[in-house]
């Protein structure tokens, strides 16, 4: 019975440590660039690509293009950028806080319709914000 426990335990530990090792090696970055430039585009109600992934402490430049006029808002970091339809804009920041920060978009046109809207930013002009993607800062 005792031998059985030891065997089961050994197998469980070995399996899990191997799996843990594999998954850690996936996420391990030895040479993290201190600067990163990402290009994204807002098409419809989503960013393409949807998630912007960076590492903690990186200097990030986000090049962004939108299909409509509006304001982009990175939650948590509380960054806002006015965007003009079809024109490129740039947001620079230092990713000094880890986490997953939703990226919201307020459409300038009040007739805009979207079904992902929510009324968290009651800016008084009746525009709803839609979440179009995420800014993800992973720990090193």
């Amino acid at each position, binding site marked *: 019975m005792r031998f059985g*426990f030891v065997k089961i*335990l050994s197998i*469980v*530990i070995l399996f*899990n*440590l191997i*799996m*843990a*090792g594999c*998954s*850690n090696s996936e*996420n391990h970055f030895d040479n993290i660039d201190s600067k990163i430039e990402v290009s994204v585009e807002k098409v419809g109600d989503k960013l393409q690509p949807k998630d912007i992934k960076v590492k*903690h402490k990186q200097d990030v430049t986000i090049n962004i293009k939108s299909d409509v006029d509006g304001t982009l808002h990175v*939650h*948590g*970091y*509380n960054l806002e950028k006015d965007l003009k339809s079809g024109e490129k804009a740039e947001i620079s920041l230092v990713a*000094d*806080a*880890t*986490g*997953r*920060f*939703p990226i919201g978009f307020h459409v300038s046109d009040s007739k805009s319709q979207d079904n992902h809207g*929510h*009324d*968290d*930013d*009651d800016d008084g002009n009746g525009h709803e914000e839609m*979440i179009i993607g995420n800014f*993800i*800062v*992973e*720990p090193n």
Partner: protein
Amino acid sequence: MKKYFYGLGILASLSFGLLNVSKIQAHGFGERYDLPIPLGFFLIGASLTIILSFVVIGFFVNYAHKRRDFVPTRTLVGTHALQSTSMKIIGALIKLCAVSIFVLLLATGLFGSRNPSENFSVIFVWIIWWVGFGLAIPIIGNFWASINPITIIFDAIYFILSKNCELNKRCKGLRHKYNCPKYSEFNFAPYPPVLKYWPIVFWFLLFAWIENSGYGASPEDLARCVILYTTVSVIGMLIYGRDIWLSRGEVFNVYYNIMGSFGFLEFERDEHGSLVNINIRPPIVGLLKLQTGSISFVVFHIILLATITFDGLSETFIWYEAIDLFVPVFGLTGLEFLGLIFMPAVFFLAYYMFSWVIYLVAGEMNLNKILTVFVFALTPIAIAYHIAHYFSYIVITGQMIIPLISDPFGFGWDIFGTAAYTTNIGLINAKMIWYLSVITIVLGHVFSILISHVKSTGSYSKRSLATKSQYPMMILMVFYTALSLWIISQPLVER
């Protein structure tokens, strides 16, 4: 008998008044920026859970039966000190402070800004009180019973009423001689035995639904809910007696009593509910003192565990996929309500099944007894999950209260100069949270096994039976711990 129904009628009508709230989206306050724990952390946590289970079981098989009673407590502040004038003044000031905050939250809720993140009431109730106190009380101990505004209000009302009551005056003088009821036991009608602990089950389900569905994000609706709940509780205490209603109908009193038993301070009370001693004890062991003989209480405890888990699950992709699938059938509100019923039902079924297996394996105790004896062994896992799920939330989102201290109504005031404070999102690193979550959940699991073992040794006549009973219980706990770890490893979605 008629008195029962008058009392129940008043309570029921007030309760239905609570349901009359207008729908508001929850999002807009308390945003979470967590990163789910990676697979590696999940697997290490799961491995540790299994390894430590064997270690703890080994320890208990060899040693625990030698010492059943290991709940050492030492008085930190004794009765004499608590009765001193200075301590009475401090106590009165703390109570005054608690009632002032209570009044402030009602005032801000009713008359303040409609934007939840600019209103003291919403942030205070959901983030500071529900999450913050929910974290502090299991660590410190049940201090809620001393600052519960509902009991303070009730005591004040009772004091005013009893001052003008000739009968009560005479009774007070002759209480000792004729064994008149103490004020904490005074009632107009006996508590209907049929109700058991079902009122707290009802309140907790309603509260969990208000929280998860986002009904409580409107300051005005939230204030109305608080007023109605307070009124119902005060009336309940007046009709059925203070203590009986506090233990069966005032859900937060019961909730914090369970959670606070985990803490390192014991707030010892006499039969009047007055604080007599503040004792220091090792954490966790207070749970050993908790006992119940009622299945309705077991149901409440299981609902408590399940809803805390559901709170985490409802932020993951799994739940959002369920929403896409079932909303056309049940509607969003219906689905949220079903989720709150479904999870406790599954948890209760699992607990019932494992208790039945214990009954088959160990015998001696009947199934009802097994269900009631081991239910508190699940408390540490719930507390651990609560800490793992909410620690970053209280550290980051809890900062929202800082500007609101200066501007509680959202009118643009700056009383203490903190109105311009912005949340520091870099205060805690995601990796630190991952470690904390895994360590907390694994430790919670170990503590659960510990409680379960001590409960079993105190309940079974033979050591061999107690040991036998623990194998099914351990499998259930491993399952629940793995579920907790799995939920915090799931990708989150915004609400």
